[in-house]
């Protein structure tokens, strides 16, 4: 039920991008009469909810963390809620959660912190009713940055949990 709501919402958002080219028919105006017929065709083309595109655009593949923290903020929690609804809908699919860190931290500590972040996401999914056996976690520490650079912006992008299907 909840899922259908999300799908409808997604479709609505995508209207602008769909094949809705206005069709303008102009007739010869030599007769003095101009008749313009405008027909807007809205093709509602819902994304396959099992597609990579759906996961990327509707569910959201990432949650982000503050420095040296594994606390889920409100935005992260709503992302995880969408995942929980989706995983409830598609009970044959399992999920992998990757924990990542920014480059500021020693290698070994960051492996542990990445594990803690991945498990924070997992624990929230379990609270929302997802079977823990459907969730695997892995830490990549600071080994797989999403973006490069040595700025707060880059670091903020790299302190993350990535959700993918297994």
């Amino acid at each position, binding site marked *: 039920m909840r899922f259908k709501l999300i799908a409808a919402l997604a479709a609505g958002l995508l209207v602008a991008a769909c094949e809705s080219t206005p069709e303008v028919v102009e007739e010869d105006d030599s007769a003095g009469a101009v008749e313009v017929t405008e027909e807007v065709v809205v093709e509602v083309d819902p994304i396959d909810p099992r597609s990579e595109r759906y996961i990327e655009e509707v569910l959201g593949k990432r949650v982000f963390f503050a420095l040296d923290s594994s606390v889920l903020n409100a935005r992260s929690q709503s992302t995880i809620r969408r995942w929980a609804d989706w995983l409830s809908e598609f009970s044959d699919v399992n999920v992998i959660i990757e924990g990542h860190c920014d480059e500021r931290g*020693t*290698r070994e*500590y960051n*492996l542990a912190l990445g*594990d803690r972040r991945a*498990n924070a996401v997992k624990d929230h999914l379990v609270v929302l009713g997802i079977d823990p056996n459907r969730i695997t976690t*892995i830490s990549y*520490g600071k*080994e797989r*940055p999403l973006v490069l650079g040595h700025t707060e912006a880059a670091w903020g992008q790299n302190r993350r949990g990535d959700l993918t299907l297994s």
Partner: protein
Amino acid sequence: MIARVTRFFLVGVVSAALFTGRADAQLDVGVTEGRADPVPIAVTDFNGVGSLADLGADIASVVKADLEFSGLFRAIPPGAFLQDPASLGEDAQPRFDLWRRSGAQALVTGWVSTESDGRIRVSFRLFDTLAEEGLVGFVFRGSEGIWRRIAHKVSDAVYHRFTGEGGYFDTRIVYVHEEGPQTALTKRIAVMDYDGENHRFLTSGDHTVLTPRFSPTIQKIAYFSYFNETTPRVNLLDLATGRRDVLGDFPGMTFAPRFSPDGSSVIMSLAINGNTDIYVMNLETRTIKQLTDGSYIETSPSYSPDGSRIAFTSDRTGQTQIYVMNADGSNQDRISWDLDNRASYSTPVWSPRGDLIAFTKHIPDSDWAIGVMSPEPGEGERLLAFGDLVEGPTWSPNGRVIMFAHETYGFGEDTERVIKSIDLTGYVERTIRTQGAATDPAWSPLIP
């Protein structure tokens, strides 16, 4: 962009009272305190006949490079020599007056020959040109293929005679070699002599590998690998056989391995359900013992050289700090105490001498530092080296020099990653020769 940390060095009395000109001058070089002028030393090409003359010159150049690496010696250029080294027989007295006039306070000469069994024989003599006496001399025999090791042993003997400490030149480094785009680095474990020679790769690069560490006999390497793509673990590589094993069947990621001083077990971290604790595994019996508990990150364990205590990192205060506990996990005591209580500390590594613990320190909004402290709470902290990011210290076998990973942030996305060394005076910093970008160094004991 990043405020530089003011560098404090413990500048003690210069204890290296060298060659005061009297014939009975004490030959002594301080290796921990103050800033001593390097001892001017003449190292002649080792004498040899035919092709052995080239080998003799190669050996001399390795010895010179070793001694200069230490920062305790300065090699006199051969052009300044006033006595022809080729005229020096194995039992001859050098013309000490000529060597003094060429500026040398010490002289190393040597000879290379071939034994009847095909092995090479290398002998050397170290002389004090002021006291006009021989100080030490050795004969080494070995296959020609290991001539570099023989040269390093000559350097170790000279270093030992001057400092009273064991040397660290006949050693190896294992490290993580990096190449490719930064967001998808290929990481391979490589092993080499401490000076970058005899470099070879130990892993293929198919899986990310981190933090290799030598066993005490240098026959095995414990490291972290994503070979198991769902649960990365500590792996054990046998250098003699090339055999690789996953260490133990743990219910989660294992990482941060280090051998016990007797080589019988490996201590490491295990992460389960977001909680990381320290475990020790006996390699013979495969029994496992948990040493820490609680819902904190406890990692980077390192044994004291007598095996009785373990230093480790914990974030139980909300910030990573260094703790020491007994080998059974009892009596956990925090030892890192920053004056402002702002800094975080991690990766403690116990010196082979037992007197100091090297660490990584990070002061928020500032540089990173490598330093040493006493194993007693809040005592003896000294910072030795700094960088945009430095981490992961590893000790020379004599506990006088530390290597570490050093990152320099360039413009934009560029990062230079090298391995550096710093001695305990904080004055002698070197960049270690590696093949390309490098991190996660581990320094071997003296090769058995």
